[in-house]
């Protein structure tokens, strides 16, 4: 046994970086740092299935992006930032002749860890509906792309939805809105936004922390029963979401007045809560379900031909599966924009940045690629790396997520100054001179 182990260790030292360039048509290398083991495997597993199925569909049905095939490869990280950093270092030089056009971080802690490294290596970090909120300002963070929906937009869209339910923004005055948040950086990320919104609309903003892992929340929900808020935001994830929903039922708080955030709105957050979750709604930049055109195409071309990465076909169309689909589509459309500009050959980091900063998907394009209703219209610019900032609302009826609204846009004029201010502080502290995009040439 010892010889096998020593051989493994020796072998480990050899593989370091010998990239062999094959003469055949070079494909765009896309590394995927994934987690299929540990506490987050339940949501991760479906995410990677969504990504791999779509990439496979692009390669085998559409013959690649503008003819360039996608060479995607998986690396296990167990959702730990230092393993993701190790994977990033291993792949940043590219593979088989193709440089990295972008790097999916698949987790906000990893995005924080890689922020400066990727900026120095000029490789865009893609972390849709996550990332560091200040990085929406592309002038200070050229290589960070929190696409679709920032943590500030979550707060704003949530408030806009409540306003629509209570009959207008003026009705918000005097309301009590409590936020039960997981006591971590993730849980606190949208607090600055909701403070500003509270000042503007005059509702009372109550913040209630839940210590990790959050499997016992009676004190928190007893406080809610005492203060009697009108609405409750859940900024939780994993176990703390399930326990929050169940404890809410026990303390008699109606589920249909609880709104969960992006990462508290998947099937695995509600199924364990059983009947207590009926009526619970969540912000959905990634709507659940399969009645979208792309799902029909995937069913025919991938699922029914047994080519899907899904272990359990019943989970086709689950929220986390659609997360993978949408993220993959964003990457493909960005690459397409890049290939049209720089030519159909693998892009490097800088070209990738240009591609993402000129990514526009309007309604017409959404219909063509079959993502209408699943992905919001998006327009990324050098100064706005979010590009969308809208989400739909879906509620759990005990069996599946039911879409309640179309895309509700966040209040960007209110949020942008907040983001600019944060980005400027970071720039000053780290001695970065914000770029002036309109003067740039390419």
């Amino acid at each position: 046994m010892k010889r096998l182990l020593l051989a493994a260790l020796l072998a480990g030292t050899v593989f370091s970086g010998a990239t062999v360039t094959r003469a055949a048509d070079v494909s765009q290398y896309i590394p995927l740092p994934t987690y299929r083991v540990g506490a987050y495997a339940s949501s991760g597993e479906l995410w990677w299935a969504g990504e791999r199925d779509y990439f496979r569909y692009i390669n085998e049905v559409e013959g690649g992006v503008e003819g360039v095939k996608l060479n995607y490869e998986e690396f296990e990280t167990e959702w730990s930032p230092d393993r993701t950093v190790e994977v990033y270092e291993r792949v940043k030089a590219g593979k088989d002749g193709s440089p990295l056009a972008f790097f999916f971080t698949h987790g906000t802690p990893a995005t924080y860890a890689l922020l400066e490294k990727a900026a120095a290596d000029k490789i865009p970090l893609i972390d849709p509906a996550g990332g560091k909120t200040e990085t929406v300002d592309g002038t200070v963070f050229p290589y960070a792309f929190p696409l679709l929906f920032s943590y500030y937009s979550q707060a704003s869209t949530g408030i806009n939805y409540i306003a629509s339910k209570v009959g207008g923004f003026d009705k918000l005055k005097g309301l009590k809105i409590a936020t039960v948040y997981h006591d971590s950086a993730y849980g606190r990320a949208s607090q600055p936004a909701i403070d500003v919104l509270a000042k503007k609309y005059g509702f009372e903003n109550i913040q209630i922390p839940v210590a990790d892992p959050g499997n016992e929340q009676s004190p928190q929900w007893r406080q809610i029963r005492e203060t009697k808020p009108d609405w409750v935001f859940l900024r939780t994830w994993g176990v703390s979401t399930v326990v929050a929903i169940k404890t809410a039922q026990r303390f008699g708080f109606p589920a249909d007045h609880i709104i969960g955030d992006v990462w508290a709105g998947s099937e695995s957050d509600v199924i364990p809560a059983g009947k207590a979750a009926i009526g619970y709604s969540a912000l959905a930049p990634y709507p659940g379900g399969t009645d979208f055109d792309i799902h029909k195409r995937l069913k025919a071309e991938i699922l029914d031909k047994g080519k899907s990465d899904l272990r359990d076909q019943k989970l086709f169309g689950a929220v986390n599966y659609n997360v993978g689909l949408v993220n993959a589509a964003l990457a493909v459309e960005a690459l397409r924009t890049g290939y049209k500009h720089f030519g159909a050959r693998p892009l490097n980091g800088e070209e990738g940045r240009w591609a993402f900063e000129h990514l526009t998907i309007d309604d017409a394009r959404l219909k063509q690629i079959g993502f209408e209703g699943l992905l919001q219209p998006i327009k990324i610019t050098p100064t706005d790396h979010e590009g969308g900032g809208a989400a739909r609302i879906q509620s759990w009826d005990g069996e599946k997520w039911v879409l309640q609204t179309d895309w509700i846009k966040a209040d960007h004029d209110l949020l942008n100054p907040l983001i600019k201010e944060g980005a400027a502080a970071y720039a000053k502290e780290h001695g970065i001179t914000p770029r002036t995009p309109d003067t740039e040439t390419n």
Partner: protein
Amino acid sequence: MSMFLETLIGGLLAGTMYSLVAIGFVLIYKASGVFNYAQGSILLFGALTFVSLTGQGVPAPVAIAITIALLVLMAIAIEKLLLRPLTNRSPMTLFMATLGLSYLIEAVAQGIMGSQVRALDLGIDDLPIFVGDIMISQFDLIAAGVALALGIGLSLLFNRTRIGIQLRGVADDTRAALSLGIDINRIWQIVWAVAGVVGLVAGLLWGARQGVQFSLSLVVLKALPVLIIGGFTSIAGAIVGGLVVGAGESLAETYLGPFLGGGITPWFAYALALVFLFIRPAGLFGERQIERV
């Protein structure tokens, strides 16, 4: 005043859920001096096996029987392959061996039964019942009953039955017990099996509360302060420790929390344990070895 009472009672009942987990640790530490880090993974394995079986239509009682059988087999395997070669090694080495064991059990559980989250309905709907205007969770009440029943059952096993007396002999001094011809290996197998079943009970109750998923094994963190307050070697200590930690956390989060910004439960439980240890350095019920030099 009713707010205080409700917080106190709610905390006490929640504490019994911690005791359930702590009892599993006490059993194994008492008999084999091993602080079993893998207890969380065994708890997860039990709950996951049960839910997977019932998921495939196996009736609950049969599923329970199969799961217990698997846990007993696992206990025998652990004793044979891991404990026997490591007898009278330092507690640190044994602690680390159980870390390796937890990786293996989690890998087997997730590998075979998948990592998807599953609901577990024990038929106890978590609706509150009111005593005056004090709200008590039906679920926690039943969990407290189960914990109490388990505690009494196990102390009966320990004190009344023949195996129980042998168990306590082994716990007191393994070498002495060996010299009296007590079959240590069989005893350890029994202890690990019983701990596995206790883990299953805890796993089902916690699973019904938060869904059967990988982070079920994190519930071990809640048991640590309970063990430290109650002492590693006594089941009564595990129950009392659970009540103290449950009530302490609940009261602290409600009354102390607002001044400190909330979310203080994790470190508060250990601060509480530290205070208790200063009074009794081996926990409330743990025996403190007399320094014989």
